[in-house]
């Protein structure tokens, strides 16, 4: 940890895509479908999923990331972490201009991190918690000063997670109700032109983009179509060219993949890493018993759910941390709940826990709440219901709308078991800790530790991993952590969803980052 840790990045922008600018065909309009329509275009105050799909094209981040989650230069040409991990120095590009023509400087970085993200961004509040100041010795150097090391920051500087804002625009007036919340101004490859609510957002090529020759596309239109069948029809007919992150139902994605003009890719969720879970209320009997929780985790047929509900777009989860973290060394598997004799094991665990089968063959019953995110969640609930019937547990399903469900699960804790959909995000500190850390048991705060389980050992492991700057050492801490969590199983980690992205073959290079449809599409071009 005291080792000097330097990571200088290559200067040449051309090295980025590795593609010569002249070889690609310029021009054309790409039509993207995003579902649902974003509530606003203010990624600095909301991380609502559809917002980033639009704004990641308009703003730039300090860094970009490869599929191995390793940083690449963007607005920052290079960065250097001090030996104690308490200072990160970014060297900024000198040729970057915002869409209004004003230059991008370290002042903008300071404003974005300290005033916008650290105070208002739902995740930025946590990511930048330990940043005490951003120093600006000159217009092209920004130094993050930290109260303790925070390796998570270097994973959270993409244009999606931490968009760099022009201070001269967003620094004027109240940022929470800013006039530009719906007409964003950034430095990205596309500039905002028009948003017709209920229809589309139109973005045109930024002719002064700092990567010369890019973007190739003249225009990007993001359309909003509320009905799933119509979205599929629009893609099939070629009226729209790209849709991802659940915008196309899984069975339709499978059907569309058979068409000659369409391809379906499962790349582009490496930095999102969504996991389907069953969360237990560990303060409520019988789910206060780890054996019962493990038994249920064994009983759920993950492969069946993947094939029949998610139509093959997923793989069994091996623990609290997604296997997408394998390349960066942070992944480790916990107890294997997919073993062949899992049903026998589940039965045995329930016998041991003191829930023998009664005369009618059942052991106990409970109400299973379903994540209100659409039809596949109802199907998944039915699978859980059937799987648990096999081990003598009777399940009744309950489906409510989102506000009601959030209140029931995260405010009133008035549930027994609920399905849930949490993202690991670019780093476990952001997406994983919140689910099981004791300091995240907060009534009224959604998508945190709703099982209310925690242990001093796992808390300590997470606290250590959060400040450990050496990836290998972090990986060891997380391996131990994953094992401990799977022994307690406050949550049954069911499967990792690989969202299908449906793409027209007319366009190439659309999904070329681990952020997928949250990428900036600068290198996307016509065939």
């Amino acid at each position, binding site marked *: 940890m005291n080792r000097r840790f330097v990571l200088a990045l290559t200067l040449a922008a051309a090295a980025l895509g590795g593609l010569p600018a002249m070889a690609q065909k310029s021009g054309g309009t790409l039509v993207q479908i995003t579902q649902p329509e974003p509530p606003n275009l203010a990624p600095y105050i909301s991380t609502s999923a559809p917002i980033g799909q639009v704004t990641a094209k308009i703003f730039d981040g300090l860094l970009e990331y490869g599929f191995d989650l390793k940083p690449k230069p963007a607005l920052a040409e290079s960065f250097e972490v001090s030996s104690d991990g308490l200072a990160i120095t970014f060297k900024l590009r000198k040729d970057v201009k915002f869409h209004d023509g004003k230059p991008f400087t370290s002042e903008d970085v300071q404003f974005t991190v300290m005033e916008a993200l650290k105070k208002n961004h739902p995740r930025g509040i946590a990511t930048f918690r330990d940043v005490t100041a951003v120093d600006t010795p000159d217009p092209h150097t920004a130094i993050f000063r930290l109260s303790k090391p925070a390796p998570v920051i270097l994973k959270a500087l993409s244009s999606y997670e931490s968009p760099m804002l022009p201070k001269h625009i967003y620094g004027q007036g109240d940022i929470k109700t800013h006039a530009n919340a719906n007409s964003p101004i950034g430095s990205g490859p596309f500039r905002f032109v028009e948003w017709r609510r209920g229809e589309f957002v139109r973005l045109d090529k930024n002719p002064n983009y700092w990567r010369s020759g890019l973007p190739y596309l003249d225009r990007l239109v993001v359309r909003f179509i509320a009905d799933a069948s*119509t979205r599929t029809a629009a893609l099939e007919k070629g009226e729209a060219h790209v849709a991802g992150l659940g915008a196309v139902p899984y069975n339709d994605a499978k059907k569309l993949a058979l068409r000659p003009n369409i391809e379906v890719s499962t790349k582009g969720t490496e930095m999102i890493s969504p996991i389907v879970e069953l969360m237990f209320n560990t303060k409520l009997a019988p789910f206060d018993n780890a054996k019962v929780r493990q038994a249920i985790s064994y009983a759920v047929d993950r492969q069946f759910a993947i094939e029949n509900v998610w139509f093959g777009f997923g793989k069994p989860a091996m623990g609290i941390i997604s296997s997408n973290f394998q390349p960066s060394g942070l992944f480790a598997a916990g107890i294997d709940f997919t073993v062949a004799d899992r049903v026998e094991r589940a039965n045995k665990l329930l016998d041991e826990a003191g829930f023998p089968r009664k005369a009618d063959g059942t052991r106990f019953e409970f109400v299973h709440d379903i994540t209100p995110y659409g039809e596949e969640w109802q199907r998944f609930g039915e699978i859980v219901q059937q799987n648990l019937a096999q081990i003598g547990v009777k399940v009744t399903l309950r489906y409510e709308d989102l506000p009601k469900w959030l209140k029931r699960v995260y405010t009133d804790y008035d549930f027994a078991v609920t399905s849930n959909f949490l993202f690991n995000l670019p780093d476990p500190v952001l997406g994983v800790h919140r689910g099981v850390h004791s300091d995240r048991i907060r009534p009224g705060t959604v998508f945190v530790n709703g099982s209310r389980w925690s242990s001093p050992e796992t808390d300590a492991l997470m606290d250590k991993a959060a400040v450990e700057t050496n990836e290998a050492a972090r990986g060891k801490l997380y391996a131990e952590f994953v094992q401990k969590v799977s022994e307690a199983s406050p949550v049954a980690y069911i499967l990792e969803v690989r969202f299908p992205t449906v793409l027209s073959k007319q366009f190439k290079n659309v999904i070329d980052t681990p952020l997928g449809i949250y990428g900036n599409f600068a290198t996307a071009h016509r065939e």
Partner: protein
Amino acid sequence: MKSGSLGSYIARRLLQTIPVILGVVVVNFLLLQLAPGDLATVLAGEAGGAPKEYIDQLRARFGQDQPVYIQLFNYMRNLLVLDLGYSFRQSAPVLDLLLARLWPTLLLMGSTLVVSLGLGILMGLLAALWVRTWKDHVISVAAIIVYATPLFWVGLMLVLVFSIWLDWLPTSGMENVVAFHEGWDRVVDIARHLVLPTVTLSLFYLALYARLMRASMLEQRGLDYVTTARAKGQSDRKITTRHVFRNALLPVVTMAGVQTGGLLGGSVVVEAIFAWPGLGQLAFQSLFARDYNLLLGIFFMSAVLVVIVNLTVDVIYVFLDPRIRIG
């Protein structure tokens, strides 16, 4: 003299609607308080989780930390100067959001009214003239089938047939977002996009009006005044067009007025299928987001629309049937 009394009648009717609309707003405001969960939780939920401080901060900003009666009082006070508030979820004033959706809504409603009333009346008229022939049976059976078919299914089938298979019309949206036509090209483009949603939404009402028109025509034809007219030696054709048709229209027009409210509701489905940017979809989204400022604004605007349409219907009566006096 007559136009003067008509003017004062309209003015009086408009005055009478003010308490109606205020009542609608108050009732809706209180009803919405009963729904569990609030905008702050939804915003935090959409964000994939947020600290408690963030949620409390949101609630204070939305004024939700105040007692309900104060919130209601504030809302009503602002409403009197047509300030419909701010949609925190959409980061825009409610009035702007509503006005942006108003013209697509009126376009769809208007074209649907014209098509469903026009064709419905025509089909009802023909069915009545051909009563108890095979043509009448075809029209009546077709009307029943259309009336009983769910809107969303009709919409999806039309997309499948006319967009995907025949490739005549666009699947969805209001205009071509690759071309962005201008001038007359744009008018034609929007008209092409309007066809399928209008047909879908019209079919249901068309069937309703056709059946009503047919029944109404048959009833009028049996009345004494028709016998009188025939005794006077008027031709069948003249009796039908001059007398029976005009009188038979009255119930259909009444029904059309009553159905406007329903038209707004039915358009939620059609707007969703065809991605038509109208008020219905906005209402649907804001309900699930608990965006009450916006939702109340939509209720307010719908109430105003319904009142205006019904007033128009009452005025049309006068022209259709000189016996009806206003004032």
